[in-house]
Every structure is written in structure tokens, then in C-alpha cells.
């Protein structure tokens, strides 16, 4: 009887040190060792939060290349880790293993619920295995299906929506104002880690034309050097308000450095273009009344934190519907698995959607 098997450790079951040891092994080496151990179809999923091996046990009649049953996955994993894993290891088979993979690909099993990276990592693992010739019909269908479910869950439930860090939340808001960030210019007032992080996120969105103004010219020049930005003399920054799109204020000043009259006079010259002010300084750098100026959008550190909190609880709220969708797709896969049964090797039309394969008369 052939079937899917899974053995693995994740952030939920094991300490970081243990996972690091397995991660260091590397996917190609892992695949090699699996082959030696008698597995012909196997995929290794290795990220910093999990190490999982999916294998398809060959039908007993044909056996592995050596004609015998392959070494069990948990024994292999224990061997690789070099320590007993029984307390940390989970083992699943058949449809339950598939369901687990679906939920992993959907980001439901991640440390940060709904994060998007894992889908790419699943894809990469699958592609490495395919490149190594370690996939077959069942594992192909399983992983392609998992990638499809991962995308589906994100599209239908929005579990991945809403950023979870202050810096990326600010970048998303900037996109809500300007559309793309390409060609937008950013001005940083002051310095600081948060300002740097936020600028990095904006630059990641291809904002260009970063300028940095600091009361200390040396500090501005130093920061500018690091970001490939243009240092600006402190006295010159009010004039720049007429042309930049985003201002990140992060000075240690005791009283606001951006006042309403300053913004109002700049707004007249801006011809109605939007201005996004991000005030991450404590005490605040931007006067609250600036908010009343048309087309000026002010967000403070407190606002951004509130948004992140809300996003987090929103994601948790969507977890149930996402889980439901995953289990639906898992049972769909299960019925395909059982209907294909022993004969799936003969009659299976390789389909992107197993449900269609079920419906097709064989």
C-alpha cells in the first residue's frame, strides 16, 4: 500500500537549537540521504521555523530500489538531528499529512499567522525535490495542490492581509495614498532606528529620492551614506516640503518641528498633491492641527501601533474560516486519494485539481 507520510518538528514542538541543527543539513543533502535510505518520492521542507520531510511510501510489491521497505522517516530525522526527537517529533499519514501540508502552505501553522513567505518556501522545497528527481505522481499532485490551497486561502479569507510591523504598516498606508511608491520622494527628519526601518520599507517599495535632514550635518551625512540618500541642511528642509511626498519625522526635539503654518504654506505650492506625514517621535514632531489641512495625512507612532494591533486580531478572527477551507480541501484530497486507491497509478489523469480527477470517469 502506497501512501503519504510526514515526520517533522516545528516551532510549536521543538526548541530553536534543534531546528537549527536540522536546517544546517540543507535540502539537497537531505534528499540524497532519503534516496539512500530507500525513498524514491520525498520532499524536504526546511525553514527556520520547521523541518519536515514528506515521503511517499512505495507500493510494497515493487518496494524501493533495493527491493525493501525504506527506513522510517522519524528514524532518519533522529539520525540527522543526532538527538532523540520523540518529544518533539510529529508523525502523520495519508490525508492527515496532506491536511497538515495544506495548513502549512496557507500560513496557518506559522509563527506569524498568515505570513506569505511560507508559500514560497513550500514551492522551493517542491522544486528542489523535483529537480533531484525525487517526485512522482502522488507527490506532484500533493504539492501542486498545496500551493493552490495556499493561494486560495489567502485570496478567499484575506488571512494574510494587514501588516504586522509599524514600519510595514506605514509603507502600506503610503501605498493607499499614492498607489505605487515608484518615483515618490521621502524626507527623513532626524534619525533613529524606527526612521531607518520605515525608510527601508518604503524603499523596498521602490520609493526613490530619499533625503535626510538632521540638526547635525555630520549625522545626516553619515545616515545618507548608508542609504544612498542625499543629506540636507536642517535650515533647508521647510522648502523641501513643497516637493517631497512622504515625511518621516523622528527628531528628539522637545516641541514640534513641523507646524501647521509651515505645512499650509507648502500645501499651496504642492498644487493639491497628497502629503503623508509619519511622526514616530516621542514627544511628537508634528503639530496635531496639521491634520486639518486638506490632503495632508498624518500618522503617529500610536496610530501605527493601533493599526498593527488591529491587523493582528483581525488575522486571528479569520483563522476559523481559513481552517475550515483547509479542512474542506483536505477532505477533497482524501476522497481523491481513496478513490484512486491502488489503481491510481494506472487510471489517474494528472490534474491540477484532484476533484476533477474524481469526477472524470475512469
Amino acid at each position: 500500500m502506497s501512501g503519504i507520510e510526514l515526520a517533522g518538528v516545528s516551532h510549536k514542538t521543538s526548541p530553536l537549537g534543534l531546528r537549527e541543527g536540522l536546517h544546517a543539513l540543507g535540502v539537497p543533502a537531505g534528499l540524497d540521504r532519503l534516496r539512500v535510505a530507500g525513498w524514491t518520492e520525498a520532499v524536504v521542507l526546511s525553514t527556520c521555523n520547521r523541518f519536515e520531510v514528506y515521503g511517499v511510501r512505495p507500493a510494497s510489491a515493487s518496494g524501493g530500489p533495493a527491493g525493501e521497505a525504506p527506513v522510517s522517516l522519524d528514524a532518519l530525522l533522529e539520525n540527522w538531528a543526532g538527538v532523540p526527537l520523540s518529544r518533539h517529533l510529529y508523525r502523520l499519514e495519508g490525508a492527515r499529512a496532506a491536511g497538515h501540508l495544506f495548513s502549512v502552505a496557507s500560513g496557518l501553522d506559522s509563527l506569524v499567522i498568515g505570513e506569505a513567505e511560507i508559500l514560497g518556501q513550500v514551492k522551493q522545497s517542491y522544486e528542489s525535490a523535483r529537480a533531484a528527481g525525487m517526485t512522482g505522481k502522488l507527490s506532484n499532485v500533493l504539492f501542486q495542490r498545496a500551493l493552490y490551497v495556499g493561494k486560495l486561502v489567502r485570496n478567499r479569507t484575506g488571512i494574510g492581509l494587514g501588516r504586522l510591523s509599524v514600519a510595514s504598516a506605514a509603507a502600506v498606508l503610503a501605498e493607499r495614498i499614492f498607489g505605487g511608491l515608484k518615483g515618490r520622494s521621502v524626507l527623513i527628519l532626524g534619525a533613529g532606528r524606527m526612521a531607518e526601518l520605515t525608510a527601508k520599507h518604503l524603499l523596498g517599495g521602490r520609493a526613490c529620492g530619499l533625503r535626510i535632514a538632521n540638526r547635525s550635518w555630520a549625522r545626516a551625512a553619515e545616515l545618507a551614506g548608508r542609504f544612498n540618500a542625499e543629506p540636507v541642511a536642517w535650515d533647508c528642509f521647510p522648502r523641501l516640503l513643497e516637493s517631497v511626498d512622504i515625511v518621516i519625522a523622528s527628531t528628539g526635539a522637545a516641541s514640534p518641528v513641523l507646524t501647521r503654518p509651515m505645512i499650509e504654506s507648502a500645501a499651496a505650492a504642492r498644487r493639491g498633491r497628497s502629503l503623508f506625514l509619519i511622526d514616530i517621535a516621542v514627544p511628537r514632531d508634528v503639530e496635531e492641527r496639521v491634520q486639518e489641512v486638506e490632503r495632508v495625512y498624518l500618522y503617529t507612532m500610536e496610530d501605527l501601533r493601533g493599526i498593527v494591533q488591529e491587523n493582528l486580531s483581525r488575522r486571528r478572527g479569520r483563522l476559523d474560516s481559513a481552517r475550515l477551507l483547509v479542512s474542506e480541501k483536505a477532505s477533497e484530497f482524501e476522497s481523491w486519494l481513496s478513490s484512486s486507491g491502488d489503481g491510481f497509478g494506472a487510471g489517474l489523469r494528472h490534474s491540477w485539481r484532484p476533484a476533477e480527477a474524481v469526477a472524470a470517469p475512469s
Partner: protein
Amino acid sequence: MEWRLFLAAAAFYTAATVLAFVFLRSRDERWSEWMLRLMGLGVSLHLLSFGLRLSAFWSLAPNRYFAPVDSFFGALSYLALAFSAAFFFIEARHRLGILGAFVLPWSCVACWAALWAAGRGGTVETGLLVPELRSYWMNLHPLALMTAYAVLGNAFGVGLAWLVQDRQMKSRRPTELCYRLPALELLDRLNERLISVACPVLALGIAMGGAWAHGAWGRFWGWDAKETWALVTLLVYVACVLMRRTASWRGRRAVYASMLGFACALFTFAGVNFLSGLHGYLSQGAAPP
């Protein structure tokens, strides 16, 4: 057949509008995709229906080759078609899914109004064009104006979406709606572009009306209610465009001004028909064939 196709198109528009509202409330992308598909279907069926109307209309020799927009039903049907087609193109190009909830209701209103007009006047059947309307201007003047109204209606929806998004961003506690609405600058540019496109068409339509009036009645302009209101509409929109260009009067006030313009356009199209003696063709119905 024409009638059935029109009913089907109206049903598809309505369903698409409902989907647009469902999408507003849910985060499922499928609603938006289905909305676009239904709109595509609706527009195709509507085109077919309009084609059949055209062939029926032209089967009467004196009507040949004038546009069948001499009745409320015909005019509203054309308006709904132009409106929906404009939205379909904007949506297919920019994929602003959620915009449907702001724009599509007008498409439905136009369709339902056409149904109501048909039920009231029983004028689905095409009649003979009254002799005064048998002019090549018939294909230019009303069509240009209605096309402009359709584009302006879309601009109105875009402006509404901008207002909602602006409020979201200003609140500093944006809800989910904020993340599904298009970006502010994008909406603003789209609004401006649609109005800038519609304005010259509107002006041209009015000018062609003047030329027609000169040919038919020997005068360009008579301060008839419809003429006056069309001029008011045009002036509001032109002011809107100029303010944006020169006085950097963008933001809330510009959008409010464009909304005022749309209110004028609605009144010009629908309300004035009952006040205007000269433009009363629509409310009088067609002559018997």
C-alpha cells in the same frame, strides 16, 4: 427578443451590483471577478438588444439611419449601455474591483428607469421618428450628450470612492475598506481624467444642439429649460477642471463640485424633459408608425 435581451442585461447589471456590494463587505476576490464577468455578459447582451432595436427601428424606411433614442426607453437604454461599457473598460483596465459598489448602482438606476418608462409609456415598440427629429444631428447631438453623461456618472462614482478613502485615511484608524479601495491619488487622477474627457464631449454636444436648432428653428440658443440646464452643467464641470488645473483646488471641494455637476446633469437629462417645451420629445412618446 430585444426586450428579453434587455431584461437579461438589466438582470446581469443588477446581479453585478449586488456582487459589488457583497465584495464591499467580504474580502473574497471571487465576488469581484464574478462582478466583472457578469458586467461583460450584461454589456454584450445589451449590445445585442440594442442592435436588434436598431434593425427594428430601421425597418421603417423614414427612420433609416437615425439612432433610436427618441423615446425614454431608447434613450435610457443607450445611457445604461454607455455607462456600463465605460465602467467595464475602466474596471477591466485598472482592476479597481471595489469601485463597482460606487459606480454600478447608476447603471441599474438607468436600466430600471428604462423599464419603468417602457411600462408607463408602452413604448418599447419602435415608432416612427417625428419629422423634426429626422436629421443627421439625431445621431450626433443626443448621443454625444448621453455618452458624456455616462462618463460623468462614472466620474461621480470615482469621486464618491475618493471621499470615502479620504475619510478613511484622515481618520487614522482605517478599516478594511481602506485596503480594498484604490489609492487616493489614483482615484483623484481617474476622476480628473474622466471629467476632462467628458467636458469637451459635453460642450460639443451642446454646440451641435445649437447648430441643429439653427437649422431647424433659425436660432442657435433660446434659453429653453433644457438648454439652460445643459449649459449650467457644462459650466460647473468646466469650473471644476479649471479650478483643479489653475487654483490647485483639489481634494474635497473639487469632488463636491464634480458631484454638484453630476446632479445638474441628472436634472438636465431627466427632470427638465417635463419642463421643456422644445425638448419634450421623450415625454411625448413616439408617433404611431
